């Protein structure tokens, strides 16, 4: 005998119980998801707030105001205001006079310590000013100069007054000068111009990202010029023309694998091939661009192929049915429709390349290069490598500068990613 069937009331009751269970499970599932998102957001907030709070002070530094008498004889011994003449001149002396006058320093030791308050970059700045405007010679100007990084650290509170003088990087006398100048309002906390106009420097107060930013731009230009056309051409060929056989399968698998290869491996490859075999110089943005292009290619190829695959077959059929040749189908219809996806992939690949450090260390872009590169074959460095180097330096001021450089790098990355989003939205078409 079979069991009697349950009554509708019984069934309804059981359904109700199971429904409650199901709802509870759903709520649990949602809760876990929300917790995961909250954790991720929490870490992001911590990360961003640390970088911003550390980085914003890096955009500022302390400047000292000096009344400088621009003595023509001392600065311009030949009297023609030419570059040579200015380099023969003695801006140091001029500055020393201004500093002694301002601080009232006397004695050999006192004068020496007083002069140390001003950044050693002040002389270059003075020379550059006169080169810009020779009419200033012979006048007295009120000029702001960066203070030495130790003074800056003191003013930011990293060097403590309480520390015994022997353990301090500033003497009591120097602190006395600083206090006095500050009381007169002659030391100010200003937006740092060195950060944007300076390059790598051992003097923290003179260090800036200009050289690295220019190096990054040069390197990425090479990367884009190589990786985009090669990547798109590869994707189009593999997706549209290549026969599906063992060989293309192997190529496909290898491209996917390359996308997962640690970037430092590309650096070793670049070192062996471009520098070892082809004999390029080290530290060149050109070679950096080659290496990053190799690294970016798989990303571009994979996203381009996805974009090509996403073009509906009906569009190809329509064009083929009209008697368009395969190349016409691709150039007239498929590529325009796939282009937003390809560009998005390319920009994301470029953003990856912009943030890459390891492969560039391998090809010597970590070298200490003070001059801003002016061409693709001028030794240079890039922003992330600059950050890497600064993070290594001992001076307290580099902490702020490092975080500021990270903020600049992040800004570039955000702009590039935003560009990708805008491009995708703008060129996205319906079909």
């Amino acid at each position, binding site marked *: 005998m079979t069991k009697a069937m349950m009554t509708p009331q019984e069934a309804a009751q059981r359904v109700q119980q199971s429904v409650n269970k199901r709802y509870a499970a759903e709520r649990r599932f949602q809760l876990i998801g929300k917790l995961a998102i909250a954790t991720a957001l929490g870490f992001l907030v911590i990360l961003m707030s640390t970088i911003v709070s550390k980085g914003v002070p890096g955009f500022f530094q302390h400047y000292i105001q000096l009344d400088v008498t621009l003595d023509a004889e001392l600065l311009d011994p030949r009297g023609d205001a030419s570059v040579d003449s200015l380099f023969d001149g003695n801006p140091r002396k001029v500055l020393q006079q201004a500093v002694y006058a301002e601080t009232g320093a006397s004695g050999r030791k006192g004068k020496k310590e007083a002069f140390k308050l001003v950044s050693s970059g002040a002389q270059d700045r003075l020379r550059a000013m006169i080169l810009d405007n020779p009419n200033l010679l012979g006048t007295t100007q009120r000029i702001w100069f960066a203070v030495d990084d130790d003074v800056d650290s003191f003013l930011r509170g990293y060097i403590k007054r309480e520390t015994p003088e022997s353990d301090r990087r500033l003497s009591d006398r120097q602190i006395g000068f600083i206090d006095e100048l500050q009381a007169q309002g002659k030391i100010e906390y200003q937006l740092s111009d060195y950060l944007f106009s300076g390059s790598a420097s051992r003097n923290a107060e003179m260090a800036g990202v200009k050289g690295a930013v220019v190096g990054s731009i040069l390197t990425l230009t090479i990367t884009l010029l190589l990786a985009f056309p090669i990547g798109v051409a590869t994707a189009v060929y593999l997706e549209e023309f290549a026969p599906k056989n063992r060989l293309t399968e192997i190529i496909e698998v290898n491209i996917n694998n390359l996308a997962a290869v640690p970037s430092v491996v590309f650096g070793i490859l670049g070192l062996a091939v471009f520098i070892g075999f082809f004999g390029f110089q080290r530290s060149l943005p050109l070679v950096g661009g080659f290496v990053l292009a190799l690294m970016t290619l798989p990303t571009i190829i994979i996203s381009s192929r996805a974009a090509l695959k996403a073009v509906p077959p*009906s*569009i190809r059929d*329509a*064009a*083929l*049915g*009209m008697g368009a040749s395969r190349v*016409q189908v691709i150039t*007239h219809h498929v590529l325009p429709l796939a282009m937003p996806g390809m560009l998005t992939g390319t920009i994301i690949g470029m953003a990856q390349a912009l943030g890459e450090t390891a492969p560039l260390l391998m090809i010597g872009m970590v070298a200490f290069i003070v001059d801003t590169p002016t061409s693709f074959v001028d030794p240079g460095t890039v922003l992330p490598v600059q950050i890497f180097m600064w993070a290594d330096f001992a001076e307290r001021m580099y902490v702020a500068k490092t975080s500021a450089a990270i903020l600049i790098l992040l800004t570039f990355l955000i702009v590039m990613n935003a560009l990708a989003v805008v491009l995708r939205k703008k060129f996205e078409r319906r079909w």
Partner: protein
Amino acid sequence: MDLVVDPTTEKPEERAVQIEETVGNVHVDNPRMRAENVQVHYGDKHAIQNVTIDIGANEVVAFIGPSGCGKSTFLRCLNRMNDTIDICRVDGRIELDGKDIYDPSVDVVPLRARVGMVFQKPNPFPKSIYDNVAYGPRIHGLCDSKAELDEVVEQSLTKAGLWEEVKDRLDQPGTGLSGGQQQRLCIARAIAVSPEVILMDEPCSALDPIATAKIEELIHELSSQFTIVIVTHSMQQAARVSHRTAYFHLGRLVEVGPTKQIFTSPQHSLTQDYITGRFG
């Protein structure tokens, strides 16, 4: 002798039916296209077996049959659209005006200009209405001047019964039209290159009844100028628009005849079962 077993029946042994030769007269007096012993293989699958049929000038031929019977496959052989499928192999002979279109010397680009195609799902290019119609003439270099091209576009849209509806918005995207309008745009695009034959692969299956009626009317009008081959799932549609009907079953052409005869007195039992709705 092949035995074909219809999978839709409960007792296959009863429905095993001989399809040896196509019933009815496959030949016509003035053929535009002729297919002889066409075989199509998709890899190991024998999709089309031994199909022989003539398509007469200015005639509307309907291909009917249950899903998967090979009618669309055969249609796509007529302008070599199957070339794009790697595993597809076509044997036999298909002639257009007496010339084998699968001959190695035949270029597929001009062939497709002569044998146009309209697809199941309306597939206008994501370009303007004007550019959609002008695409064919442009790539084939049919027009020397802009004025001439304008003329072709207007004529094609007029013939497709779309001119009055779109003449004020030719620069707007073709994808913004309604489904029926899009399909008529696709027909306009196909006739803009003045083809000899137009292949239509279930052109109304994605459309509502009113749009379908318009397309059917259009097919009727176009038949005075073009040869039309239409694949359809709707037997009423086949009956309304076509002069001759061909019934396909499991990759074979079972019966060909004047449409009226196919629908009133089919000769083959499979045809009869299909049109009376016993399977399909």
